């Protein structure tokens, strides 16, 4: 079984590689939207910095006091800029929600879909996936509440417990549990989306239940796949981060840009890798459950 799980992870990596045009398109979208979110920031900075010698203290190093003084300038005003950038991140989120149907379809068929096919799937599953998102948020509410409680508890322990580290470890433990719960919920809804696309299921309450049964009926296998990919992702993030912090000099803007983009690209790859692994696993193990599901539907 272990070999099989590893095989799914490897096959998923190959699938992402074969269908890398998806990765590049999404990356381009992410980059373009973020760029649009950055332009107002850049323009405002430009007004203050481009002709000021004080800019050197930000270019040849990163003097936090100068940076804070900069972003509190009325001409820059970080407070006014953040909502603008957030709008573009929100747009990316909505676009990704829209594209998910097409991405899963492309991975399912393991071929380059024609634009018409791709966007047909996107359009078909967009509204159902919006409804599924609503269910996801409902499920996440208790996770969020739990996290809030852990935060409050750990803060109290950090101040009141005789052992100073207790609050910290409770917070670390609580955060790990919360992240794990979030991961499980995400896995569940990922499977619901995979099922929906594979089975052409547009009724999200059924996909929600199917995802639940698939996920928790095969929890060990699926979580192992998920964790393995996330571990590989973390390892892949550490190196560029280290390079950025330790090796890239403050004034090497181009190198800094490339390292940053490598990080972004790797993070995006990880998400698609998860999607591909779930699709492949479903194709291998899902049909039997699917028949049962269809029988129930017929009944």
């Amino acid at each position, binding site marked *: 079984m272990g070999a099989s799980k590893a095989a799914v992870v490897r096959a998923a990596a190959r699938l992402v590689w074969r269908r890398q045009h998806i990765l590049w398109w999404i990356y381009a979208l*992410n*980059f373009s939207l*973020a*760029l649009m*979110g*950055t332009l107002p*920031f*850049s323009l405002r*900075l*430009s007004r*203050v*910095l*481009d*002709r*000021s*010698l*004080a*800019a050197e203290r*930000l*270019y040849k*190093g990163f*003097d*936090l*006091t*100068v*940076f*804070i*003084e*900069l972003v*509190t*300038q009325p001409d820059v005003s970080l407070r006014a800029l953040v909502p603008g*950038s*957030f709008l*573009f*991140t*929100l747009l*990316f*989120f*909505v676009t*990704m*929600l829209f594209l998910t149907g097409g991405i899963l379809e492309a991975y399912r068929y393991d071929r380059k879909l024609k634009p018409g096919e791709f966007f047909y799937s996107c359009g078909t599953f967009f509204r159902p996936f919006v409804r599924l*998102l609503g269910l996801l948020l409902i499920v996440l509410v208790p996770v969020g509440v739990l996290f809030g409680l852990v935060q409050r508890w750990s803060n109290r322990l*950090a*101040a*009141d417990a*005789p052992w*100073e*580290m207790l*609050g910290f470890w409770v917070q670390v433990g609580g955060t790990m549990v919360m992240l794990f719960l979030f991961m499980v919920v*995400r896995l569940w809804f990922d499977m619901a989306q995979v099922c929906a696309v594979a089975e052409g299921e547009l009724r999200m309450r059924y996909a929600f239940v199917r995802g639940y049964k698939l996920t928790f009926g095969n929890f060990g296998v699926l979580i192992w796949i998920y964790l393995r990919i996330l571990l590989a992702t973390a390892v892949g993030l550490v190196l560029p981060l280290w390079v950025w*912090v330790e090796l890239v000099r*403050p*004034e090497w*803007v181009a190198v*800094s840009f490339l390292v*940053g*983009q490598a990080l*972004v690209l790797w*993070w995006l790859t990880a*998400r698609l890798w998860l999607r591909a692994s779930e699709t492949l696993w479903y194709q291998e193990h899902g049909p039997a459950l699917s028949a049962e599901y269809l029988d129930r539907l017929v009944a």
Partner: protein
Amino acid sequence: MRGTESLLKILIAGAVLTSGLRGAEPVELTAPPGPTAEPLAERVVAYQIDARLDVNKKTIDATELLTYRNLTGRPLDVFPFHLYLNAFQPKSTAVREARRDDRNFQWKDKNFGSIEVRSFAVAGMGDLTRQLVFVQPDDGNPDDRTVFQVRLARPVTPGAQVQFKIAFHAQLPEGLARTGYKRDFFMVAQWFPKVGVWWKGAWNCHQFHRTTEFFADFGTYDVKLTVPQSCIVGSSGEQVASINNRDGTKTVSVHAEDIHDFAWAASPDFRVVEDTWQGSVGTVKIRLLMSPGHVKQAPRYLQALKGTLERFDRWYGPYPYNRITVVDPPHGAFGAGGMEYPTLITAGTTWWMPRGVRLPELIVEHEFGHQYWYGMVATNEFEEAWLDEGINFYAEVKVMGSLYEPAASGIDLWGATLNDAGAQRLSYLGTPDTDPLTRRAYEYMTSDAYGAVSYAKTAMVLLTLEGLIGEETLRHALQAYFLRYRFTHPTGEDFLKTVEETSGQNLRWFYDQAVYGTQVLDYAVERVNSDRVDWFEKKPPAEKKGETLYRSTVLVRRKGDFIFPVEVKVKFDNGERVREKWDGRDRWIRYTYQKKAKIVSAEIDPDHRVWLDANLFNNSLTREPNRAATRKLSNYWLFLTQLFAQLLAWMA
């Protein structure tokens, strides 16, 4: 006795409970312990306190014998006393002010603190407990009980002394600000009835405010502290004896001279780290009382403390005491951290504090600095907070910049740096114009304004003054100020005049704006331009570097109402540099040059001496734009936006 009915009841109950202390007979005069060394200060007070800490109830029961020498030159029949711990009550002026300035401030019952005078007797005049009257000289808040006064049956003649015998009961708050307990840690400060200061021909005894600190006369302290035997005690002064009692307690005897306050800390968990430092007038014993989780950071405290001792000794004058105790509050007791008391300071750190974040060093440096600017040069912190906090902030900048890399004296972590002076400048920029430095601490617009102006703006004023008269001159001025006024209560004018004397300059024009005024200083290069002199020719010859003649102009503007002379450095593309001096009196000035070179840049204050300038970005202007910094920051912004977008998209 004026006051509320409940207060009366408490005092009556206290009087009954402690009737043994207040007989009808006059209390006999007790001789205070004689001086053990040549006094450094004019000793006005001698406190003998015998206190017992109840670690379960978080209370202190104590008797206090205060011998007051009337050196005022006039008879005194009224004596005011501070009862600081009564500030920790919801209706007190301090708590009212906290709520006024911070709507998120919440009162918690565990923060309740109080001090109750159970008996008050005067040698030769008998019990005067019923004569005590609460007064509110600052705001008239009848619920504030942080100051009481008593009128004696007959005045204390000039040169005579009077003895007050006081029994009091104190309830410590859970650490809220500066004093109190946390679990089994006790930071006991502002804990005993303390007489006011006769200053400028009147009693000076202010209520406890949210922002104010303290003011008291110098003298001696002989304090006996009875605590559980498991407790390790740190205090102002020198511990001279420790005797174990049969009831599981011990009594620690402490003697201190030439100080004006006495604070102590106790905890069974302290880890003691000791060291010494050789100063110019003798050895100083350093005693760190570390919380268990912070022991690894003791070397950081020590390095900062020794470095600070050395620099203060060299720059300003000797540290004359033979001891300094540093109390490291445990987690959850940060409110007790970062505070100064004579020969005892409280530090502050966390177990995870990265080496690159120099907060522990900064706190120790700052609080030790107060041994000079507050401890020895004992200015009135209620009325002229800038003299201790501001001067100390300036000294902090100099010491931290000398101990560490000046550009990274606050933070040096992962490529990001923060220098102490820059951080203070940010605080100053928050409210540069609300209050003059000379405002009484409790009369600032808000407590934030108090912090920004009395701490940070003063430091900026002194850094700017340093640019004006020179670093060495200001250092000599501070040294002269310290040596002249140590162990006295100087005023702001004493300080300002000392700087004028040392520098040999009339600085009133500067003081009027920077110290007594609220003017904002902001100079800007409005425009730089290089234009060919033959610009009107229809077919001018091709531009040639070094041959084409240009008429260049630099327009400099004073945007703020603070008038200050500034230098302007103009750089040309042939490498030539011109320095102009402008008195800044007019609203603007234009410099015109005719050279075979174009302007590269113009910069006001090229040596970065005018720290009061409220906008450093408009201090310079280049003729050609350079987008490097914008590109770098935009790259960071782009990356963060991309990352955040992807994180959000995990929900999709």
